[in-house]
């Protein structure tokens, strides 16, 4: 079938007009992958097109890029899935990475974040002979995180990293959870306390689901981050706005069946945190002027009882 590719190019060695979009029309087998198509371009049409790829089997993590605006491993994305009727495929480099050339991005920031979470097992002591004795279940659970191939797709499409470069990010946090839940590791609390930190830690995630959506390996980084939040709370690491926010949210919903936004804002900041509360005043005033200030004393929801039952059930099921 005919495949139409529109590829974003970048040549750092040109002083001007160094970013452009280039069209390639090629003829390939319909069940080919987008990587097959790009290799075909590179081999037969334009040898200057730059991209990384190696295994062609979705295990090395080299070929992440954006296809029609969403990050994909192109070796496991078939042309007919995305463009069944021969629609134009827009190919661009991954987001949240600096571009080196064409579709090749600088992966050093990605790996710097991995290094940030002390990415190796830290047991207090090792068995003198043989292996650590732990249950198969405990190891099996870690398989999800071990599936991560560090392709960077989750980082590419992370909406927090777009605005906050300090965020440790989905891949590194998923990697962190792999050690937090490893029964052989003895730094669990230290790890959780570090990840719980206000700046860039687990509470920075806005739960936009992008990382879950784009992960080609089913790692579901966001779910791993939520696991870490719960574990942090369990060990008593509660001195974060994130914890207060969650807590206030839960209290307000179970009490009234509604979210009490005024209380949420104040409690998330911390009721003794004067400077943060002062910061909230202009926000409140703006909301007041626009008629969007939530009521100071919230009404109860009509089916409040049902909501309370639901909340109770959720807690019991945990």
């Amino acid at each position, binding site marked *: 079938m005919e495949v139409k590719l529109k590829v974003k190019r970048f040549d750092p060695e040109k002083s001007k007009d160094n970013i452009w979009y280039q069209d390639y029309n090629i003829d390939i087998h319909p069940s080919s992958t987008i990587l097959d198509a790009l290799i075909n371009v590179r081999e037969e049409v*334009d*040898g*200057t097109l730059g991209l990384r*790829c190696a295994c062609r089997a979705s295990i090395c993590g080299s070929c992440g890029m954006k296809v029609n605006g969403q990050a994909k491993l192109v070796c496991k994305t078939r042309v007919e899935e995305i463009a069944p009727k021969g629609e134009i495929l827009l190919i661009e480099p991954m987001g949240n990475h600096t571009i080196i050339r064409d579709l090749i991005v600088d992966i050093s920031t990605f*790996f710097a974040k991995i290094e940030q979470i002390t990415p190796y097992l830290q047991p207090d002591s090792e068995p003198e*002979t043989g292996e650590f004795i732990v249950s198969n279940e405990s190891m*099996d659970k870690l398989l999800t995180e071990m599936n991560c191939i*560090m392709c960077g797709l989750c980082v590419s499409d992370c909406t927090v990293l777009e605005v906050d470069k300090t965020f440790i990010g989905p891949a590194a946090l998923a990697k962190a959870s792999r050690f937090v839940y490893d029964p052989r590791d003895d730094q669990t609390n230290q790890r959780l306390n570090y990840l719980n930190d206000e700046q860039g830690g687990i509470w920075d995630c806005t739960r936009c689901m992008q990382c879950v959506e784009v992960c080609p390996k089913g790692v579901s980084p966001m779910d791993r981050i939520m696991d870490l939040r719960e574990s942090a709370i369990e060990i008593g690491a509660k001195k974060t706005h994130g914890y207060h926010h969650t807590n206030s949210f839960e209290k307000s919903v179970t009490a009234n069946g509604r979210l009490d936004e005024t209380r949420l804002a104040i409690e998330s900041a911390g009721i003794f945190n004067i400077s943060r509360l002062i910061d909230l005043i202009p926000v409140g005033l703006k909301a007041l002027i626009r008629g969007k200030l939530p009521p100071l004393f919230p009404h109860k929801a009509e089916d409040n009882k049902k909501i309370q039952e639901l909340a109770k059930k959720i807690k019991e099921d945990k």
Partner: protein
Amino acid sequence: MYDHDLLIVGAGLAGLRCAVEAQRMGLKVAVITKVHPVRSHSNAAQGGINAPLTDRGDDWKGHALDTIKGSDYLADQDAVEIMSQEAGEAVLELERMGVIFSRGEDGKLGTRRFGGQKVARTFFVGAITGSALLHVLYEQSLKLGLQVYEEWFVTSLINEEGVIKGVVALDLKTGELEAITAKAVVIAAGGAGRVFEPSTNALICTGDGLSLAWNNGAGLMDMEMIQYHPTTLARTGILMSEAARGEGAYLFNSEGDRFMEKYAPDYMELASRDVVSRAEQTEINEGRGIDGNVLLDLRHLGKDFIESRLGYLQEVSVEFLGIDMAEKPVPIRPGMHYIMGGIKTDVNGETGVPGLYAAGECANVSVHGANRLGANSLLDTVVFGRRSATKASEYVKTVKDSRISTSEHVEKDLNRIKKILNNKGRFRTSEIRNTMATAMTEGIGVFRDQKSMEYAKKIVEESKIKFRDSLVVENKGKVYNTDLLFALELGYMIDCAESIVHGALTRKESRGAHFRTDIKDRNDKEWLKHTLIYRDRSGELKIETPDVTITQWKPVERVY
């Protein structure tokens, strides 16, 4: 200028295991790799790693004998003994570093069965064992603060009067050529699968290390021994792990027969890889295939089992062919997968060239002989990766100063690259590569004969001339010029192809993966020997045939 005690070329399992050991010994170590370490091809190993653990009632001699029988008695038995004896500790050490191996009820490491072995002694992580090991060794390298030249491509070894003193390499991100000196160099740069088309190997497996060593006086041994894996996915050629058969999958032909009954009644689907691949190819050639494939059937294992133990295979089957393995058999065929041959080393990674060591797929110790058992390649990388670090560190202590004048060496490669960039030829790298690699599969395939091998040789010779005289590289830039990179890799691939065709033409018998339809029998009387090829500066080949080392297992007929 950069200077180290030990420089390791390649950051796969062999390279990283070697680096971790050398770093622990206090050497000033660096690794140089053309891809980020976790992109290395060790990733692709799926099924597991073999180890006879004595506390589980296994015995190293059992593993050694299976390995030797698997090798069709071409492996050097002293080397196999070392690998089998050190296997247990090597695997347990990986566990203690953090690998999340699958376990049994007792919380100890659990096993699965693999081909060519009667006992289950393969330790595994789902169907991502290679990836799990590689990521953990990478973690250890971070823990130890290992220096890595990441995305640097080695263009030559620095050779002063026959002594290796470092490398010249291209920093892909800047396009600058630099010298990196070292008291010793370990080549752990992986295999050369791209010399064949199709191949399960990644596009980066271009035989760089083999060529570098060969051009500096090391010998390439048993290069004719090319492993065709029995189960690669139809059309795409993607590897489907032997773990599928290890866990109980069947092979069927178009007539619904479990055809392995005819070829290996005792081991059935779990015979050695060369045996199963030949059986499949025979079925296909005799008209009992389906569009050039046979069927791999896992349905009886059940969906839950498939997804928990063989998740990656299911993922690949669904993604690439749209087949749910719990519902339908998958079409598969033999595909080029591994080179048993490689840089001749002793059991300590020594190549015979002062300052030059080798380990992993690019090396030939030889523990795999004429056919490697599944799950022995990962074992090979960690055992001999570690041993080469130990031996190289002894050598490093004898070298006083590694700092030398390097400008001449850099200049030489700079001129070579300039020449390639300025060449006004008409053949793209890909065109020469594809023609050669297709001919290699045709000529040095599952079955081969004098005529087919000579055909491959002719095409390799033509490729060599095209590469020298009529290559064109479109991209003249410096920053991440992959067009240039592929051209340089093609040079390495042509060297590998040359050694493979000469190895194949030299061996006048059938043994393991080298099956000649014109000489079908193994000939222990004349060919219990390796083929060992050297090439001198003028390009002249010298072929030797040293004896295989036999310790306690006399060659007998190989029946599965």
